[in-house]
């Protein structure tokens, strides 16, 4: 079989039955990361030595009949905010931290190693995961992330390399992080599937902290099914991260054909989206009616974006206090990242606490609405990928509404973005399913049902084969 653009599930079976060699697979990915990665500014560090050691171990274990599961021998990349031992740099996308190293692996990396995964590279990201207020794609020392769907199209952010590497067939799956939009946006811009787990589902030990109460780690892959396989490997409690919940996660990959879903749409949720996104969303609703019901729902009038923005800015300001107050942010790539965070000294403690109190109400209202639904659906991102040299619209910056993102991240709810169309210029659009807390299996089932009756996830960018 050809491993290129094969889903993890197929690759895993091919590896298990020894039709594909993990070592050869690692070489394919390493070569593609090296030759094609620079085209998309997708890669920070190739982890060749570690990859070949892990692949060799996987090959030997499988030959001896000790198969660990569907990720055994499968290459993957991680956003470069996950620490890795062995002298491999962990740069957080920031020029002043190019030489930063840690002497331990992040829990997610350890768990993927335990599952038999093969780490082939550390992937590019927006500097400090966008926490300093960047406004345009050129905000990383590795250059602006480029979507494989267009030479002038942004892949981010902030898990830019995780999105583009999967879309270009450089790795079968990747790990990204989301504080507000950083998994769903690159999934949308790159035309892949991206799962934001429930807050606390996945340990963040060893991950760069941007906002302690908002940060989540999750997979990007070609299919929703693959996201489920990866989530099962990385989820679970961790003594090193007190926020990692003691709720075991077992991916339910049971048959979804014939299952009926109940979908909700927040009134006017797509009104501010670009025409191509809105049209794709409207078409998607018609398709979703084939597998369930679609009803309009309302949320009470609350300042959702203001709540999440205040929390994000205040926590990010504290998380990076040293870099901000020392002036080290002057070494960042995006000119606006070199000073914008100073403004956050103007946030009052009582306003942060008010946002946290209102967050309780947001979580309660979101759960009330979702308790009668399998998922809320909405565009994964309100716009197609932005041009590289222009400022983008962003809810985190306050110039485009994003109730789904504000509510979903403030309430810590899971969501998955999957491709649902293309603009006239050939750039992908995206559909998100957002569920109740801890209901990853429900939204994964809905997304799998969607991908069972559509073929957007089977299309690949031109010039990558």
């Amino acid at each position, binding site marked *: 079989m050809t491993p290129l653009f094969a889903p993890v599930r197929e690759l895993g079976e091919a590896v298990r039955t020894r039709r594909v060699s993990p070592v050869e697979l690692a070489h394919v990915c390493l070569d593609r990361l090296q030759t094609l990665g620079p085209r998309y500014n997708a890669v920070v560090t190739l982890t060749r030595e570690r990859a070949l050691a892990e692949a060799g171990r996987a090959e030997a274990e499988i030959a001896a009949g000790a198969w660990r599961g569907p990720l055994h021998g499968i290459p993957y990349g991680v956003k470069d905010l996950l620490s890795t031992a062995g002298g491999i740099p962990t740069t957080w996308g920031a020029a002043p931290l190019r030489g930063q190293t840690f002497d331990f692996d992040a829990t997610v990396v350890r768990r993927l190693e335990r599952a038999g995964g093969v780490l082939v590279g550390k992937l590019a990201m927006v500097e400090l995961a966008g926490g300093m207020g960047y406004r345009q794609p050129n905000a990383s020392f590795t250059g602006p992330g480029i979507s494989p769907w267009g030479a002038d199209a942004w892949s981010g952010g902030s898990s830019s390399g995780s999105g583009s590497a999967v879309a270009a067939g450089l790795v079968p799956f990747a790990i990204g992080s989301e504080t507000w939009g950083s998994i769903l946006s690159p999934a949308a811009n790159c035309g892949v599937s991206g799962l934001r787990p429930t807050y606390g589902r996945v340990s963040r030990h060893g991950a760069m902290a941007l906002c302690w109460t908002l940060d989540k780690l999750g997979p990007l892959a070609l299919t929703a099914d693959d996201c489920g396989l990866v989530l099962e490997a990385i989820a679970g409690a961790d003594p090193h991260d007190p926020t990692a919940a003691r709720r075991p996660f077992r991916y339910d990959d049971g048959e979804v054909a014939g299952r009926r879903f109940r979908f909700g749409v927040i009134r006017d949720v797509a009104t501010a989206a670009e025409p191509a996104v809105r049209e794709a969303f409207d078409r998607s609703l018609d398709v979703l009616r084939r597998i369930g019901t679609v009803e309009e729902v309302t949320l009470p009038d609350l*300042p959702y974006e*203001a709540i999440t923005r*205040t929390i994000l800015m205040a926590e990010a300001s504290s998380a990076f206090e040293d870099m901000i107050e020392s002036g080290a942010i002057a070494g960042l790539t995006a000119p*606006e990242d070199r000073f914008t965070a100073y403004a956050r000294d103007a946030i009052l403690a009582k306003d942060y606490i*008010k946002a946290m*109190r*209102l967050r309780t109400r947001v979580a309660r209202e979101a759960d009330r609405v979702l308790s009668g639904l399998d998922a809320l659906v909405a565009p994964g991102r309100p716009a197609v990928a932005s041009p590289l040299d222009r400022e983008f619209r962003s809810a985190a910056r306050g110039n485009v509404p994003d109730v789904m993102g504000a509510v979903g991240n403030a309430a810590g709810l899971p969501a998955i973005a999957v491709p649902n169309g293309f603009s006239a210029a050939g750039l992908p659009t995206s559909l998100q399913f957002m569920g109740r807390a801890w209901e990853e299996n429900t939204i994964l089932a809905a997304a799998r049902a969607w991908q069972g009756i559509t073929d957007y996830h089977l299309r690949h960018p031109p010039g990558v084969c």
Partner: protein
Amino acid sequence: MSEPGRDVGEVDLRLALIRQRYGDRLSPEQLADLRRAVEAIVELAAALRAVPLTSADEPLPRFQPLRTDE
């Protein structure tokens, strides 16, 4: 620049703190940019304060006392 109706005094007071702390690192253009950022922060705060809560409305997540041996 500030729009009519905005609380310019509050913006100026908060901006003065930033200028006091970081002014020696900032160009006039950056200071103007920061004024807009502070205006946005004041607007966010106003939106939050406009929502009435009772003292029983607690923040999420709730603080939990910690024992490292458990």
